[in-house]
């Protein structure tokens, strides 16, 4: 299932500078078809900035982002149209729209009905609208929100708001989904449910790039994990590689004072999870 053909997403040497501050420094990453890739790192490591570079919210100072072998334009809506959807770290739903309307907004790029079609309401309009609604309801069904379709998004409990954000992102028929801390603030049961949701999304053939702090979540899900520290990617690989990497341990726990004993298998990088 790994990268045999050309990768879905190919990031080469992305650097983002804000004045004198280099938030992301020469990061390269590839995401293959049907892969789940994790992106971890301490707070302020530049993970979200990196996401913003991918989705056109920021224009990277250097480097290129190619999706399906096409360079992505630096405009968020064009990136979404190309097939990359995202969620936000701090939930950004359309709070005063209903759950269904939120998902319908996600359909925007995949529908064409313009203003005249809306005024004239011909058969084509009704067909497209019905299709959108069916698709949106299907996604709500998929995320388990179907019975709340007519609620205002702001009235949903926290966990369901996260799910709704994912449903809204899926509505644009993406090939790659970027999840920014999908389990932040969730309890263990909700995190388990989120894991299953992510697997279910992958089974639909959608690749996923996920930022997370919850190590168990990351290592359960991801085929590969990249570690970002101070804007630089220090290591990328499977669970073993990442967990045993000295620099990762240093980044999370600080440098040992003396000749430190080798990290105890499996537990050390998971430390941030305990602080949550």
């Amino acid at each position, binding site marked *: 299932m790994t990268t045999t053909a050309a990768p879905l997403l190919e990031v080469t040497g992305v650097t983002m500078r804000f004045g004198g501050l280099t938030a992301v420094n020469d990061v390269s990453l590839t995401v293959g078809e049907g892969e789940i890739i994790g992106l971890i790192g301490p707070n302020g490591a530049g993970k979200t900035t990196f996401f913003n570079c991918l989705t056109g919210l920021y224009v990277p100072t250097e480097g290129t982002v190619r999706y399906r072998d096409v360079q992505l334009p630096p405009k968020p809506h064009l990136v979404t149209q190309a097939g990359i959807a995202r969620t936000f770290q701090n939930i950004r739903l359309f709070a005063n729209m209903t759950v269904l309307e939120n998902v319908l907004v996600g359909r925007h790029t995949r529908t064409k009905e313009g203003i005249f079609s809306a005024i004239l309401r011909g058969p084509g309009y009704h067909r497209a609208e019905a299709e959108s609604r069916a698709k949106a309801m299907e996604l709500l069904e998929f995320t388990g929100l179907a019975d709340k379709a007519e609620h205002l998004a702001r*009235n949903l409990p926290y966990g369901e708001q996260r799910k709704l954000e994912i449903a809204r992102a899926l509505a644009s028929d993406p090939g790659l989904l970027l999840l920014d801390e999908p389990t932040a603030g969730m309890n263990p049961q909700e995190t388990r449910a989120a894991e299953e949701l992510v697997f279910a999304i992958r089974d639909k053939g959608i690749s996923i790039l996920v930022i997370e702090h919850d190590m168990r979540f990351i290592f359960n899900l991801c085929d590969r994990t990249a570690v970002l520290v101070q804007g630089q990617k220090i290591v990328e690989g499977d669970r073993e590689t990442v967990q045993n990497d000295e620099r990762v341990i240093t980044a999370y726990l600080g440098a040992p004072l003396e000749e430190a004993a080798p990290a105890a298998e499996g537990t050390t990088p998971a430390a941030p999870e305990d602080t949550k």
Partner: protein
Amino acid sequence: MTTTTTETTPVIPLPARAAAALTGLGALATAASAAMAWTWTSDFPGDLTFYGSPAGLQWLALAAGLLTLVVLLGSQGVPGLRWATPAGSNNAVLYAATGTLAVSVYSVASIAVELDGLVNLEPGGWVLAAGGLITVLGALGLPLDRRTAVPLRIVDKRLFLLVPAAPLVWFGTHAIPEDKPVAPVLTALAGGVAIATGAVLLVQLGHLANTWLRLGKIERPLDAPRALPSWVEVLVIIVAFGLGLFAITFGIDTEYGELFIGCLLFAGPTLAALTKSGLIARLRALTVKHRPVTTGAAFAAAASFPFTQSSDQYTSVATNILIFATVALGLNIVVGLAGLLDLGYVAFLGVGAYSAALVSGSPASPIHVQFPFWAAMLTGAAVSMIFGVIIGAPTLRLRGDYLAIVTLGFGEIFRITMLNLNGTTGPKVTNGSNGIPRIPDLEIFGFDLGKPHTVAGIELGRFSNYYLLMLLVTAVVVLIFARVGNSRIGRAWVAIREDETAAEAMGINGFRLKLLAFALGACLAGLAGTVQAHVSYTVTPDQYTFAEALPPNSAFLLAAVILGGMGTISGPLAGATLLFLIPKKLEFLADYQLLAFGAALIVLMRVRPEGLIPNRRQQLEFHEAAIPAQPTGEPTALTKAGA
């Protein structure tokens, strides 16, 4: 905050039966006083000197008394009237009684003030006053929905310093001779301090009353409405709209300001009473069920307005209300749906009006052409839309306050440009401040809108014709608003309003959609402008300013949208009607007109921050926060999200 607990107790401890009897007696007395003379002289407007023939304010007293009686009997469970209070709360009676008291106290007070003294009251006037008081006293004795405790709120204590300051400034003003240059400044200061003091005392009085009355809301399950045959339901809707038409006609036709204020004083508590009684909720359920009928009934009610008028005096007012309301609806697309604060919107009305005037065949127009009506309309709308795009393209890259500032500037640029295209400071196009006069009347398929026509035995004058034409334009704008608002485009606008970054991340081209909203709004305003040019004969630049005492201007348009309810159709229509009528009818207050108008706006926005007719979203937005800790069983999403 403690959780609010509620109880059902009277404010004034009276036996329930006695209280009900007292309320009924008061209401009857008020209604009966309408048939008596209130004053001996016909000097008071409306001539209230006759027995047995109510006039002016007396009609209001009659209506208020009867309404209170019906609501009271309904809440007492009298068979045949129980439909009047489906919510089963006595608070409805109290609100209706308040309306009665407001009408009676206001009538008596204005008679006493205008004719100098209470001696001018006839027995009818005394019956009226007593009736109003007894009604409210009785209603306060009914078991009302109340909170168990309301802590007394005190306004910022420093504000009470105004109370001793007011007499000091007053004496200061009088101590200084009038010829000193500071005298007018001090007079203004004294006036300001006096008004501020009054406001502070009023607010504190309100807090005191709130603590004493402790009125609250108890949610009772609304009984399922009795299944009515659908023709009866349709009939109810039609009757309701008929009543609405009658009420608005009455409001527009008020010949003197006193009566209009009386109307407002009556309408406020009455609406509150109807809401509390649950009748509005019932009606809303019916209108949702029979939407086409409702739309038809509203349109028919509006169309039949000219047929109720004997002269053109008020149809001209109504025509201008429609123009104002239509433009407000256009602005609602820009502000209410897409969330773009546009402070120069009236310029688009002006562009439409000027375009129509230039191609109208007016002798003052440098272009000597006379377009047929439809072509003129399309020209106005198209030119206005082009201006919308030209102004929008550079400005819509700004967000929030910056956009507001820039649009404010563009609104003024339009007006000044029109002033300068006068042949001396620029090319001769618009005749500068003289404007384009003598715009001929429209002729549609040989039908001259300038001449009176007789339809079904009723003569429709010039303004009635334009009213009906404008009503068609309004209907078109309503249709466009409704259809676009509830479509892919409308959803994208609302998404941009809610969170532009997230909307763009969902694939919405923010700039293009904002430009579309701007252009559509401009186009609709231009459409209204083409009719306005013909209605008012003359187009001048000073009709299109940012703020003025009379609508339409940008500030009033925005106020109409916000006051009425953002993002809805009926909201701006209602808001525009009120905003047009209030200043018009307050003209008798002369210098205090704007002061009273401002006070009215403050009160309205304090009572209903979400607008007169809010959309369901905004109602939630404003009133959820007011009830912080209600144990509704709903998970507290917001607190967790904030963590």
